């Protein structure tokens, strides 16, 4: 067994002395570190797309099968709350982007302000979502929990859908609205879960940012979180039309 030790030539003396404190030991340069974490975040978002992709697939197939049920059920959603939430989320994306900019330009108080605004907007979104969920619970539109098809076999009894002049659905088709609401809760629930995780991380970011952590040049964490936040926003931008809007004209 030969024992020739390191026989590869070393790289030309690496820049060992000029490390910023936040550079991790295994990266050669801070640029490499930023690149790597950024790339990792994009890959993670790719997995998220595949994750939500499964749900969208299920939605498209079942919508195609039970079109009348999906139309009638989507009339149950409150377009006002939905639009408000869309506005809230888009604003939160704006404040998030401002936060990233503040971090890059090393404005500590601006960063904290932007993050707090994003945090609050996130909470507003969840608040509105919970109002919508409560409505569904009251009307027995939660699948598996005393689900009632009354609004669909007898739309006249339900003031919410009066404006659409929906014809009553036959009982067998009305049952399929339960599938719509299953998907509604699964999709918005998964989205809300991502929001909750995001808000939790935001809380952590706010604490660290007010200690001055991200305004000394180390912005990748804020930047990558921003990517995540925008992604969650974009998912909603797809969910909102699919669940609320595309049946409006019916």
């Amino acid at each position, binding site marked *: 067994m030969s024992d020739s030790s390191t026989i590869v030539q070393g790289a030309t003396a690496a820049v060992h002395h000029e490390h910023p404190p936040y550079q991790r030991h295994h990266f050669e340069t801070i640029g490499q570190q930023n690149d790597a974490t950024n790339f990792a975040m994009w890959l993670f978002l790719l997995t998220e797309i595949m994750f939500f992709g499964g749900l969208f697939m299920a939605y498209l197939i079942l919508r195609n099968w039970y079109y009348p049920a999906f139309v009638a059920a989507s009339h149950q959603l409150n377009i006002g709350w939905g639009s408000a939430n869309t506005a809230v989320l888009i604003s939160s994306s704006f404040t998030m982007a401002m936060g990233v900019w503040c971090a890059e330009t090393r404005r500590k108080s601006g960063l904290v302000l932007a993050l707090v605004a994003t945090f609050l907007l996130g909470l507003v979104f969840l608040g509105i979502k919970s109002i919508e969920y409560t409505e569904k619970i009251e009307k027995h539109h939660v699948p598996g929990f005393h689900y009632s098809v009354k609004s669909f076999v007898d739309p006249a009894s339900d003031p919410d859908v009066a404006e659409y002049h929906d014809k009553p659905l*036959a009982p067998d088709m009305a049952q399929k609205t339960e599938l719509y609401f299953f998907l509604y809760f699964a999709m918005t629930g998964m989205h809300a879960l991502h929001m909750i995780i995001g808000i939790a991380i935001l809380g952590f970011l706010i604490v660290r940012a007010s200690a001055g952590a991200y305004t000394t040049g180390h912005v990748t964490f804020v930047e990558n979180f921003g990517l995540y936040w925008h992604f969650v926003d974009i998912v909603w931008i797809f969910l909102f039309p699919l669940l609320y809007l595309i049946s409006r004209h019916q």
Partner: protein
Amino acid sequence: MPHISPVLWQFLVKWMTNFALFPPEASRIAPQMDALYFFMVLVSLIGLTIVILLLTSFSILYSKKRHPVAVQVEGSTLLEATWTIVPLGLFLVMFVWGALIYFRVYTPPANAMNIYVVGKQWMWKAEHPGGQHEINSLHVPAGRAVQLTLISQDVFHSFSIPAFRVKREAIPGRYTTVWFEATTPGTYHLFCTQYCGTEHSHMIGDVVVLSPDDYKKWLASSTSGASLAQNGERLFASLSCNACHNTRPDARGPNLANVYGSKLRLSNGQTIVADEAYLRSAILNPSQNVMQGYAPIMPTYQGQVSEDGVIALVEYIKNLNSDYRVQQTTNTTELLPTNEGKAAPAGQKATGSTPAGQGMVKQ
């Protein structure tokens, strides 16, 4: 050799006497599938031999003792192209050959006689058009194309007859079909091959292939008195389907005569062929495909009719079809040339005895 253990000896005897490489070939498709199978075995053996020869000969020729210094070889486009194209070509041959067989197995001939099979945890129930029921067994005549229309009442099952080389999943909520023509009378294994829960391995039975004469005798002896279509007719009446589906001009539902196999125009403008799947869905999910000119007022029968009941109804509606009846009659005449309506009164009776044109619901 008495000095080896008697148990081992018996074991070896058993092996030598029962040894088989493939199950009996008892259907028309079996030899065709085996031909492809053995072609693939041959190709695989040749391929494996080549790999083993290469590995052993190189290992011997270029072992360190014989060949102390390696000669670096980059690769060879020609060689690599060879072992890309040759396997690809062979695989494509298998693909085409296999696809031909696949289409044959799942494309029943027009004159096949149809048997319904319902899978449920953990038994198979076969429903013959003559009204004969069987649990975990299936009697079929030799030399006659038999189509199976399968459905499951609960979970996925799979109807497998190794001796026929056919298999089809029985799926909840939709019909699947498969067909075969048995060639050799005998008793063969019937397995459920899709894992379906606790007693999966007990969901087995026998497929009994009978000569046409024996089959006729079996039909006669196992009749339940009414054909499947007659059962359907009874069910049709007891569910009051005829309240709407009748021939009166002001009928609220479409007339079902000659509906089977026809092209229907739906209220959403699409056209659809009324096959078994459509008829089933029209009973269980009536509002999904409403015929043009009719209001979606039919209630669903989901939960009120079992899969067996739906099958009886579908068979009844199919029998309202004069063409279908003619076809069945032709089939029956082929099968029962001499004693139609006597030795097998219920066997094919619904098809033979109800005069064409009056198959509508009697008011």
